[in-house]
């Protein structure tokens, strides 16, 4: 190990981790060339591949490496949150038709949009412009871009570094949710913990919100696959000895690293366009069900963030300001108040940090805190983090109708495969309340509001 591994946890979170392969993965990441400070694990850390999920590693921009395994296959998987002027009592009588409208409007599962295949030049434009591509075509409001990380458009994207096969996989998947842990939730704010920040974010107790979790679909998966293969040979050529081939990497500035970062940015932009389109489809579904324009419903974007990406950022290390390539795999950027990369309207409160929990309990909205810059290169948790494998969750919930159970809690569910809901049910996840508490106690975030699910749409 070139540096220490640091895990942010309390006794409740660290106990089950003591025998978890995630610890070995934290140690493996600490061997990568050019790593600065420590190999970090956020409180939601769990077993992944290569990097742990919830892993953060910053590499010297000069002399360090970039590792696609430190970003993951779902490049720019992220979370988008919309708020509204609706309150829970207005929406409860229409939960069923709203759930149907959302499920019908946004293709889920591994499906594509049949008959809506993008031409190659359009797809390349999506990969260059990101969310702006969608807004320019009427799929969204200009204010959406102001409230999206990187304005939904990562610079340096080169579609030419994205393979033909990745183009093929992405051509008919724009505006689709995907499967696994991806979801759309209609929620209600049930608790405000920091009123001034909540007001700045447009959140108040009783208000209805919509949370969207998805990424770059097959296009991003293929980008990672392609470049992982090229870096596998590049790492060997550079004499980099790896404890895990999934950590394949290339020196920053090398042709392989440059090509990956350009393709990663292209995939990240695809993901931002994807969430932009889904967000607009959500607005349209609300408009149909409530027969009211989305503007009048106040369906504004709160924020859209990425939790699977690498970025070149400036950080203070040992009293010096240096450029680092910060890998966040299942970790959210959490810049504090005053940081120039936080949107102007949120600069006084810090970057919004959106933390999905699980479909039966709650999610959180927080903001970045100064401790994040001191301890984690401006990062925090990205969710609750899984605690059970899919198999274990299914075994635990054998005979339980998860949708019915959620229905008894007043939560309406729509899913591509109702019988697979057990894989994503509450017992499969850590308690997000604990994860948020630990993140806050470490000084990484300040919790702002808690959100309870009303509708869950699963891929």
């Amino acid at each position: 190990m070139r540096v220490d591994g640091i895990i942010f946890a309390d006794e409740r979170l660290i106990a089950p981790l003591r025998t978890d392969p995630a610890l070995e993965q934290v140690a493996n990441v600490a061997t990568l060339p050019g790593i600065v400070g420590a190999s970090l694990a956020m409180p939601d850390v769990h077993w992944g591949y290569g990097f742990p999920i919830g892993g953060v590693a910053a590499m010297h921009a000069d002399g360090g490496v970039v590792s696609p395994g430190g970003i993951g296959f779902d490049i720019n998987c992220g979370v988008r949150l919309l708020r509204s002027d609706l309150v829970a009592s207005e929406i409860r009588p229409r939960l069923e038709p709203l759930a149907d409208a959302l499920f019908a409007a946004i293709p889920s599962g591994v499906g594509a949009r049949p008959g809506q295949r993008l031409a190659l030049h359009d797809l390349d434009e999506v990969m260059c412009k990101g969310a702006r591509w969608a807004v320019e075509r009427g799929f969204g409001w200009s204010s959406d871009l102001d409230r999206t990380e990187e304005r939904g458009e990562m610079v340096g994207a080169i579609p030419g570094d994205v393979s033909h096969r990745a183009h093929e996989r992405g051509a008919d998947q724009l505006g689709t949710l995907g499967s696994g842990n991806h979801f759309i939730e209609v929620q209600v704010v049930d608790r405000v913990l920091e009123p001034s920040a909540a007001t700045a974010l447009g959140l108040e107790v009783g208000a209805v919100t919509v949370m969207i979790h998805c990424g770059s679909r097959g296009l991003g998966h293929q980008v990672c696959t392609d470049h992982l293969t090229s870096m596998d040979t590049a790492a060997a050529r550079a004499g980099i000895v790896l404890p895990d081939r999934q950590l394949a990497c290339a020196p920053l500035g090398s042709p392989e690293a440059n090509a990956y970062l350009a393709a990663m940015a292209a995939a990240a932009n695809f993901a931002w366009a994807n969430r932009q389109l889904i967000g607009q489809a959500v607005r349209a579904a609300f408009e149909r069900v409530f027969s009211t324009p989305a503007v009048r419903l106040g369906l504004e974007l709160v924020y859209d963030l990425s939790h699977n990406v690498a970025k070149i950022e400036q950080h203070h290390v040992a009293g010096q300001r240096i450029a680092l390539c910060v890998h966040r795999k299942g970790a959210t950027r959490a810049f504090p108040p005053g940081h120039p990369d936080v949107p102007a309207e949120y600069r006084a409160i810090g970057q919004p940090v959106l933390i999905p929990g699980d479909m039966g309990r709650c999610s959180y909205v927080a903001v970045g805190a100064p401790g994040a810059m001191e301890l984690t290169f401006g990062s925090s948790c990205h969710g609750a983090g899984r605690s059970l494998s899919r198999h274990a969750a299914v075994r635990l919930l054998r005979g339980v109708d998860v949708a019915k159970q959620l229905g008894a809690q007043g939560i309406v569910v729509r899913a591509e495969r109702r019988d697979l809901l057990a894989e994503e049910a509450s017992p499969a996840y850590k308690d997000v309340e604990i994860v948020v508490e630990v993140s806050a106690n470490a000084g990484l975030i300040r919790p702002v509001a808690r959100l309870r699910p009303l509708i869950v749409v699963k891929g």
Partner: protein
Amino acid sequence: MTTSPPMRRRPRRPVPPRVADVSPLDSRGHELIPHTADVGLMARAGDLAGLFEEAAAAFSELTADLTENVPSGERATESVTLCAHDLISLAFSWLNELVTVSELRRSAVTGARVECVDVAPEGAGARLVATIHLVPFGGVTARRHTSVKSATFYRLSVRQFESGWRLTAYLDV
């Protein structure tokens, strides 16, 4: 390799007959391995061609629920030739080929016939020629199960034992 119990074990589905099957039948099989966020698979067979077929069978079990009898009119095939710089990379490419073909053809992988797996000595390259068997999703024959984003290099191994070969892989789902 994990010591966790097998995740699911079903009787192996019929695989199209191989041209020259020299592997002892009782050594062939596959298992799905639990993983907190993703899924692992382990395949075993008497020779490399059988091993890669078993990996395809494991992939099929993970990703699709199939009826016992597939109408011949629904069946389709995709021929592939893959080259890689070593056997591990070939396994990575093979599993990812299954992911991509299934996604692009919107079809379930029902199995594969691997014609040959050639491995040059001392990591000088590896090559696979195979036919992937498919049936379209959306009909009564095939329903989607777990969606796979990609195979990974994490703990990916292809090892020869006295009794045959074993492949272990983890897939991002």
